[in-house]
């Protein structure tokens, strides 16, 4: 068995050839029970939407083809073990935290962590120790924790169980993960990496370091984001020397993962791994050269700034993932959100995100040169037709959160609802997220100080995209009852 094999895919093909008569779920029975859906998705798709059975193994307790596929994936990623995940990278992130921390344990974590990680804290009762990721003042994007800041946090919290790292961030910013791993391990802490946007780091040349290569203990890899598998499929990697047993991690995953793992998702992971193992180096080189070409063309338009590794500063921008095409738009006088909307509404081009200062295009092996030409031409047109005098960058202030109780205690505590303006001195039970820069202003268990309340009001006034509270208008907030 080697990387040219795809055990789950091969088992499904064999299953199809034997023309099994299904008296098991799913009830569409190879699509015959739902002709409309079969016409829409195609017969092949319906044929392999099947249930766990002996020849196809079982995701909750893999002993044959899924186990083989997981071993091949582990080998391809340089991991000790790889778990196939079907509840999204959210589930991978949560399983990492739940695998190494218990209730009341501390975890050192960047403030611009994905929502899924903070939700894992709510589920588990783990206490966060936040590290300021730093913000690029001009671009308004959150950066990566500097190793210095992480080391300070480790020194101040020697009892923490783990350090959590984004590798890279949405915008392609990487931290010095190798140095963080060395320091954390020297203090007996595990290192968990959110590599939702980092699949390609494992296959390309001259890429920022992947978590497994850096010696991290666990990594959550969104194979579906740039690795070509289906949405919601993901890998959870365990490092070769992580000291975690497969059985322990599996039992944590099985706490929340479905018992009806989709074979569409599983086979897509298997086939995507096979494809990347064979062609990954070339695919990544193409992604980088496409992104670099697009950057040159976009920067030549004038006004836009498509940034790359010239940002690298050895600290909070330790490395830059050049496959990410982030474009700063304030120079043509438009917010990223405006450019994002115009691209979709007037040019039929869908970007990954738009924030106050930037739009972000995800590059993948699926990009065609003519699509890149369209994007560049559309940006040229947007500047010509909609451009204004350039606008000032929005400044962002990082306020250190004061953690009063665990996110779990706050989430489940006795609560009341107050207008945000009158909530000073109270403990929040909710998030207030602010984009940009995509950092929570407040999270459950934290003290609402006058500074934080001012920050929420100011961010709203200047037009940031705010989410998190039950109140859709972000005017009221749930706090711990006095």
């Amino acid at each position, binding site marked *: 068995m080697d990387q040219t094999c795809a055990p789950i895919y091969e088992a499904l093909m064999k299953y199809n050839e034997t023309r099994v008569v299904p008296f098991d779920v799913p009830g569409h029975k190879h699509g015959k029970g739902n002709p409309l859906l079969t016409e829409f998705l195609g017969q092949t798709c319906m044929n392999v939407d099947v249930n766990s059975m002996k020849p196809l193994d079982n995701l909750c307790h893999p002993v044959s083809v899924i186990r083989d596929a997981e071993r091949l994936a582990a080998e391809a990623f340089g991991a000790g073990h790889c778990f196939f995940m079907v509840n999204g990278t959210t589930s991978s992130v949560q399983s990492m935290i739940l695998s190494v921390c218990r209730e009341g344990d501390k975890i050192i974590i960047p403030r611009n962590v994905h929502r899924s990680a903070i939700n894992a804290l709510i589920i588990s009762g783990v206490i966060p120790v936040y590290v300021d990721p730093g913000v690029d003042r001009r671009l308004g994007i959150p950066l990566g924790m500097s190793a210095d800041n992480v080391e300070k946090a480790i020194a101040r919290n020697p009892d923490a169980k783990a350090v959590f790292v984004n590798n890279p961030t949405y915008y392609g910013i990487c931290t010095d993960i190798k140095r963080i791993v060395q320091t954390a391990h020297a203090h007996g802490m595990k290192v968990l990496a959110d590599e939702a946007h980092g699949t390609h780091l494992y296959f390309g040349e001259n890429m920022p370091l992947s978590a497994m290569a850096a010696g991290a203990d666990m990594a959550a890899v969104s194979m579906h984001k740039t690795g070509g598998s289906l949405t919601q499929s993901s890998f959870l990697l365990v490092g070769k020397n992580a000291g975690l047993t497969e059985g322990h991690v599996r039992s944590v995953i099985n706490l929340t993962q479905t018992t009806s793992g989709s074979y569409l998702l599983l086979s897509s992971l298997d086939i995507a791994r096979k494809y990347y193992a064979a062609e990954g180096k070339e695919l990544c080189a193409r992604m980088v050269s496409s992104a670099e070409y697009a950057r040159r*063309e976009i920067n030549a338009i004038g006004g836009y700034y498509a940034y790359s590794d010239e940002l690298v500063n050895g600290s909070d921008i330790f490395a830059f993932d050049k496959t990410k095409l982030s474009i700063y738009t304030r120079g043509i006088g438009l917010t990223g959100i405006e450019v994002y909307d115009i691209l979709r509404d007037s040019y039929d081009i869908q970007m990954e995100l738009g924030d106050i200062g930037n739009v972000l295009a995800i590059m993948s092996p699926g990009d065609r*040169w003519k699509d890149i030409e369209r994007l*560049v*031409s559309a940006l*040229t*047109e947007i500047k010509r037709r909609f451009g204004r005098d350039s606008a000032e960058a929005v400044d962002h202030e990082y306020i250190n959160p004061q953690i009063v109780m665990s996110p779990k205690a706050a989430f489940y505590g006795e609560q009341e609802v107050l207008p945000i303006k009158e909530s000073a001195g109270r403990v929040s039970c909710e998030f207030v997220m602010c984009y940009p820069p995509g950092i929570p202003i407040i999270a459950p268990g934290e003290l609402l100080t006058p500074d934080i309340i001012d920050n929420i009001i100011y961010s709203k006034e200047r037009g940031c995209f705010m989410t998190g509270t039950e109140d859709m208008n972000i005017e009221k907030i749930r706090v711990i009852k006095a």
Partner: protein
Amino acid sequence: MELWFTEYHSPDVKMSIRTDKQLYCGKSEFQRIDVFESPEFGRFLTLDGLMMLTEKDEFIYHEMITHVAMAANPDVKSVLVIGAGDGGTIRELTRYESIEHIDMVEIDEEVVRVCREYLPQTASKLSDPRVTIYFEDGLRFVRTKADLYDLIIVDSTDPFGPGEGLFTSEFYGNCYNALTADGILINQHESPYYKEDAAAMQRAHKRIREFFPICRVYQAHIPTYPSGHWLFGFASKTVDPLALDEERWNGLGLKTRYYNTELHKGCFAIPNYVKELLENAK
């Protein structure tokens, strides 16, 4: 032995041409290129299996994509042609001594090479000293140009293939910007008849309308194209194609087989169902 070239005009309609032999078959970076010899249509060129031109009826397409604009504004000096690797459009344009410069942008150098070798009937004037050929993407070429061309002709393939980017808002906007104050944009505008072609025609019309104050459609009858009923778009900043100086064009003494100034006036008269499709283009 019977040897037939067949092309689907819709999922349920196909057209076949008996061929004597295949003169060329090759695959470029962008598409498959074939040249055949046939008893009825003479030599013909196909790209990815789709009919581009035949020796017998190409004159209709090439006369109609050039002379309508040239008659509407005989003062055109600088022309940009996008696509047109077969050279037919260039051949017609070079007949105007008043044109000083023609830039031709064709993405596929192989198409030009093959046409020069097998289709001299259309490719004969590609070496005219006024013509500069650029082998690059049309969308890329035009986006850096401003106030440069009196006439832009988009002689593209269908919007499903290498020509895809030439049916987009960004392209039409870039063209608007590349045109001079009295500039004209002519594009091959697909057919109104079969569903898929008609939808492409509507999309193109809707997008061109966003940029150009004058935006008309005219028609021609081209036997080897799907349904035989083909449209062209005439968009301009100021020039009205129907305010025609007939004497001036006729005074040039150009001999044409399809186009004449009577037909010029008539070709803008389009069937009601096509009018409706255009009006409802959203």
